[in-house]
């Protein structure tokens, strides 16, 4: 008897639930389907856009770059916050399959949010070819000058060694000293830190794994 009562109680509530919420359930299903269809149709193009943007930036840093081959070796970078992640390193080849350099993604914390960079180095990992900004939210007119002008130019031809930030100096010299942007010391330092973190660790691990020579110039 009590079992019957329970069943009656449960079914009455189930009916009430469906009566109240059938529209929400049905429309959620339809909307979910709609989003899934759109995503299926567009995800290929979205991935292409992302890859194309990375390639375009790298091509500007390494003239003659045609092919980007992901490096299969497991290269781990430990970040300042203590976590570890697998570095995304690419071997950059020219049209005739000659290696002209390496490129990798790097990221860290800037003044107003995360900064994501792409860095290119020459084929022996001796010299930085330059960097470009994939994403940043630095202050317009100040910190966002890391994207352009004299600050970015300093990285081209700088040695692939730990860099340091200075307030005064000659930005035209291709050395390990990076002159800060006036009024944006934090952003300038952030880029130097990101480059140092990723560059030194990736370089030493690639040397260990024999991907690049151990020679010093």
């Amino acid at each position, binding site marked *: 008897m009590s079992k019957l009562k329970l069943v009656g109680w449960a079914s009455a509530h189930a009916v009430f639930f469906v009566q109240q919420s059938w529209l929400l359930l049905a429309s959620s299903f339809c909307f979910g389907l709609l989003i899934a269809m759109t995503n299926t149709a567009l995800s290929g193009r*979205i991935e292409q*856009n992302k890859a194309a943007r990375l390639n375009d930036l790298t091509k500007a840093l390494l003239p003659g770059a045609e092919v980007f081959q992901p490096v299969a070796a497991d290269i781990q970078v430990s970040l300042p916050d203590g976590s570890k992640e697998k570095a995304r390193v690419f071997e950059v080849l020219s049209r005739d399959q000659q290696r002209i350099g390496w490129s990798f993604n790097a990221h860290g914390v800037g003044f107003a949010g995360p900064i994501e960079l792409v860095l290119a180095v020459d084929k022996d990992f001796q010299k930085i070819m330059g960097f470009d900004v994939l994403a940043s939210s630095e202050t317009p007119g100040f910190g966002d000058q890391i994207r352009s002008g004299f600050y970015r130019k300093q990285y081209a031809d700088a040695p692939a060694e730990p860099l340091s930030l200075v307030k005064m100096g000659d930005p035209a010299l291709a050395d390990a000293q990076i002159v800060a942007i006036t009024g944006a010391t934090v952003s300038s330092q952030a880029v130097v830190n990101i480059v140092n973190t990723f560059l030194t660790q990736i370089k030493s691990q690639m040397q260990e794994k024999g991907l690049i020579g151990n020679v010093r110039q």
Partner: protein
Amino acid sequence: MSASNGSTSGLYSKALVTGLWRENPTFRLMIGMCPPLAVTTAVKPALTMGLSVIFVLICSNLVVSLMRNLLKPHLRIIMFTVTIATFVTICDLFLKAYQPKMSEILGAYVPLIIVNCIIIFRAEACASKSGPVVSILDGIGMGVGFTVALCILAGVREILATGHFFDVRVMPNAFVPWLALQMPVGAFVTLGLILALINVLTRRKES
């Protein structure tokens, strides 16, 4: 919308025109103020944002209007939100696929259209009470009013902060850019001055 509004065509034109000036969401009602402050550093992103909002407004108004007789009063807000979120997600995917640059500049502000007050306000105030045609016209009117407001703000800020309009140089070379207008403070100052101007104009008209 009551029957006292007159003929059907009068009803349609009223639905279309209201959002442009008399109930302009940005300049008169001051609702949905996040995009006008956040994405008006240049005209192109502002226009992209405006068009996205028009798309979402029209679609969500239409869907809400079609299901208006099935809505349970205590479940209506969640139905509005689910509908709006769907179209915003679709819009976001389209921007990522066909306008990757704009999508990157607008960043989180496209997904944030979901919680934009204008769209849920129109679903509640218009679409859940009127037929599909009126709802679509209302969506167009409100959306265009919002877009024009965004573009006015963005135009002023882009010209004074960079000397460019729509990425084309318009100011003489001697012009020194007002960088402050590109920062959040510039959005507040510009919006405040435009609102003051509108108040002066409307008060003069009334008196």
